[in-house]
């Protein structure tokens, strides 16, 4: 094991032997970074969530409207293309501004889900919409049935019925 012959700082982990037409043997010993810089190996994937984002972007390219590259958010000024390149949105308003093209990405990231259930900020006075409430109750109903808690299941079913009728 030796140091990278290029930067002489990192451990050489990439070893290449080339034989020229003249039959001369050329050995190279490089660290990963220098090998990537010289284009001898591909840079490793950054991380899992970047990979997911890249996947979405691919799917967004094929499914989004054709003029998506022109889309801008009035609030923060980010373009959809910029989001696509960095994987991060510019402001909360982007979720509405880019909704048409974001929605398929969101669905892919979250196993088809498009609606939040769970904690909501109480100070905002945000109340669940009846649809959200029903979804939540149905999930709880499934769990109650799975746990064979039929008393609770019956109560949940009644509440769902009431909400669905209203």
């Amino acid at each position, binding site marked *: 094991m030796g140091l990278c012959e290029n930067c002489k700082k990192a451990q050489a982990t990439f070893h290449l032997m080339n034989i020229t037409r003249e039959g001369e043997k050329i050995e190279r010993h490089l660290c990963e970074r220098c090998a990537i810089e010289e284009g001898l190996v591909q840079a490793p994937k950054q991380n*899992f969530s970047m990979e997911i984002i890249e996947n979405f972007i691919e799917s967004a390219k094929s499914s989004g409207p054709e003029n998506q590259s022109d889309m801008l958010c009035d609030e923060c000024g980010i373009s959809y293309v910029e989001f696509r390149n*960095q994987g991060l949105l510019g402001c909360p308003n982007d979720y*509405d501004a880019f909704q048409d093209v974001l929605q398929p990405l969101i669905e892919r990231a979250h196993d088809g889900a498009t609606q939040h259930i769970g*904690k909501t900020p109480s*100070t905002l006075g945000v109340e669940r919409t009846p649809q959200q409430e029903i979804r939540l109750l149905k999930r709880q109903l499934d769990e109650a049935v799975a746990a064979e808690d039929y008393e609770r299941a019956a109560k949940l079913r009644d509440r769902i019925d009431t909400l669905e009728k209203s």
Partner: protein
Amino acid sequence: MKQPFDGLVRNDGEWLRGDGPMHEIVISTRIRLARNIAGFHFLSRADSEMRAEIAETVQAAVRKAGLLNDFTHVDVDQLEELERNLLVERQLVSRQHAEGIGARKVVFDENEASAVMINEEDHVRIQVMRSGLQLEQAWEQINAVDDALEARLEYAFHPQYGYLTACPTNLGTGIRVSVMLHLPALRLTNELERVGRAAKDLKLAVRGLFGEGTEAMGDFFQISNQITLGCEETAIIRAFHDGVIPEIVEYEKSARAALLDKRLYALDDKLFRAYGALQNARLMSTSEAMQYLSHVRMGLHIGRLKTVDLQTVNQLFIQTQPAHLQALEGQRLNGEQRSIARANLIRDRLSRN
């Protein structure tokens, strides 16, 4: 080394305390919530003025919330590199937060169980850490911190999408549950792909010790959820608690039992070689130390090694990390100097056992 870093180095920290339910295999439970403040841009579009304003706003809310006493407030952008790395090794901040740009902070409590990262990828990242498998307790605690902050901050919230995050992969609940597991026997028996399968079925990710993009060192693995939208926080937690974690713990236990039953000499050889190397080596890299300590930790738990105490081993896991080592030595060290200092520290600690 400035306060509070001097004290930190010598503490054990919550996540390596080595107790709590299933602690022999489950090192720690961590829950993180991603939140953003309404009326501000996300950080990629926030200029330095807005960043500073966000940092001030969130920090003020944390102070006023007064949930836990003795919070330490740290301006991450004012720290030296070594101090930032120390926080990463203690899992109080992410690598991304340590290496980020502009005004950013972290606030953590005395036993390092709760922390709030300000201006990481999102404006607010709350984290709660517990030893062993303590999902419900961690959820209760983080939920309380979140409630207290929410009473003083207006979070960006969308009726359909829930809590809005800079990256759509965290959207909805903004929750990331991570359970850190120690699985040396599954690695020795080449059965780690069982872990991968169990996790994949539930769309969970398996990562290394320091989270995203890191390698599994010393047989430590983090299991975390990927889906944050359309699933209640408590349902996500239950999937870990009732499903995947006990399942993987059973795999590891049966791998340990099989090694004891069928390959005792090979097992003992691994454990005692690891112990011998730790007692005698003169140069030791981080990954080498982690691997040997991992085997010794298992050896203690299955009763094959009796001459070391668990506390010492747990402490060594953290104190042999590069930034901790340099902090203990009180100076910056290059790679070789660190290997020497690490070997010396380990020999010294083990001889005092």
